[in-house]
């Protein structure tokens, strides 16, 4: 029997250290706010933070139907990079990457941002041409990008199989040294804590069920916790964007799909960088804790169920094994899915809507984690000034009518 030194009648908790400080309050919704942000994922939380920090707007609520970052924010594979093809994309993704580089200090919160570089492998001649073209485009935009021959790929990541006799041999890779990963839930908590410090209400278990529109203007939201009046409403609902936009009668060029990812058990450090392959369709990194983190492409059908099919995982594993034979004995620990909002040109929609006071941030599909600080910054600007920031100005809803698409299928071809 253990001998206890505790005094009879005292609570067993008395011997324990104090609960660490809570990162945010859990306030009840107020009847009215200047700005209501719908969706407490990374984008919604970052938008709240920059509304306060950059624009002094603090009478703000973030409404989240579940728990903060319970959507794609804490389900993604955390790849951060800015090596997209077009000038428009370079603008917003590179703005974001620059913010990532100072984010830990700015939020005063550890986010395990690690600039370990990203390799995008090329496996065919056209792949090589497209990749080199992207490298040159990146360089013209001042973004760090290099073309690596197979031997140099192996110098960056020795466990990649560069032998010429595999089904899809590695013919080279683009390399962005400043790219990397971060710990997604910490990022969300860092933004949430800061937003809360500014007095912004983060309200969980509060699902928006309707948008109140009077004339041409949005005036409030209906929620499972009652009606809330709003001067402006900023939608940041990722996979559910079509459902929310539909509440204001808006139709979006978006299809929602399951996107799966998985982790292995914890392993010794073996994978020093991030490797992505469009052609064999897998991307792999190793988290700080030691799990191999892998993702692939979307499940083909529309789905809101946050789960996908097992054959997608099987294909992803066979692709990973061809590229990394050393993983043959690793065990798969967990798989999961998020719901991603896919647009026809693989670029986001961030800006104004035909309804006054209603703003849209969606369509980031499989690749919006990297944009978290950048889009938070630009979307806050859009909401504050009722006018897009120059970096999100090209990403209008209107471009599907004018034809000014920003086709990033090449750079975003694999989901990430």
């Amino acid at each position, binding site marked *: 029997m253990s001998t206890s030194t505790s005094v009879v009648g005292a609570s067993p908790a008395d011997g324990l250290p104090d609960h660490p400080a809570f990162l945010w309050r859990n306030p009840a919704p107020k009847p009215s706010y200047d700005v209501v942000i719908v969706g407490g994922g990374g984008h919604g939380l970052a938008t709240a933070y920059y509304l306060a920090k950059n624009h002094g707007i603090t009478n703000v609520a973030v409404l989240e139907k579940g728990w903060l970052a319970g959507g794609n924010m804490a389900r993604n594979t955390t790849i951060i990079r800015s090596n997209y093809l077009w000038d428009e994309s370079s603008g917003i993704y590179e703005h974001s990457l620059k913010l990532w580089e100072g984010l830990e200090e700015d939020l005063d919160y550890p986010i395990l941002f690690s600039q370990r570089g990203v390799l995008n492998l090329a496996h065919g001649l056209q792949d090589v041409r497209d990749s080199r073209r992207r490298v040159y485009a990146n360089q013209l935009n001042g973004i760090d990008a290099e073309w690596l021959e197979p031997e140099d790929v192996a110098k960056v990541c020795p466990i990649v199989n560069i032998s010429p006799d595999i089904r899809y041999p590695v013919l080279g890779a683009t390399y962005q040294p400043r790219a990397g990963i971060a710990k997604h839930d910490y990022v969300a908590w860092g933004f949430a804590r800061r937003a809360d410090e500014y007095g912004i209400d983060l309200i969980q278990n509060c699902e928006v069920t309707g948008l*109140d529109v009077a004339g041409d203007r949005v005036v409030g939201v209906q929620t499972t916790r009652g009606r809330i009046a709003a001067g402006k409403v900023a939608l940041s609902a990722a996979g559910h964007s079509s459902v929310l936009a539909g509440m204001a009668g808006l139709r*979006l*060029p978006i*299809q*929602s799909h399951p996107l799966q990812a998985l982790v292995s058990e914890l392993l010794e450090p073996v994978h020093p960088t991030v490797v992505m392959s469009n052609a064999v369709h897998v991307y792999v990194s190793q988290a700080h804790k030691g799990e191999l983190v892998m993702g692939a492409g979307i499940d083909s059908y*529309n789905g809101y169920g946050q789960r996908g099919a*097992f*054959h997608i995982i099987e294909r992803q594993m066979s692709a990973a094994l061809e590229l990394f034979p050393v993983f043959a004995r690793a065990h798969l620990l967990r798989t999961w899915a998020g719901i991603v909002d896919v647009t026809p040109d693989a670029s986001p929609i961030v800006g104004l809507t035909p309804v006054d006071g209603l703003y849209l941030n969606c369509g980031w599909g499989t690749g919006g984690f990297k944009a978290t600080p950048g889009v938070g910054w630009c979307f806050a600007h859009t909401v504050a000034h009722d006018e897009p920031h120059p970096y999100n100005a090209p990403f209008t809803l209107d471009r*599907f009518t004018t034809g000014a698409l920003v086709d990033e299928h090449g750079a975003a071809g694999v989901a990430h």
Partner: protein
Amino acid sequence: MQLIPCPWCGDREEAEFHYGGQAHVAYPDDPHGLSDAQWAQFVFFRDNPKGPFAERWMHAAGCRRWFNAVRDTATHDLLAVYRTGQQPPQSIAPSTGQDQAQVATA
């Protein structure tokens, strides 16, 4: 793995099928008369409801025929399958994602 009931072959594994997106999207009757906005709707915009959705599938590794299905996108339940050219059963009304609009703004 999810089983999908092909109207010709019966239940087969999902991996045998190819997805074709929203069903019943007809080519415009008068293509020359369409505005840019109308073309945009035809080319880029599809319904994206959370709930019953009428969609096309092709039994790629089987009979290779196209057919239609009503599937609940939230639960992934296949509520009905029917042949190309037919309309979905009246009893299952596929939602377009637009009907919430009337409710919400009413």
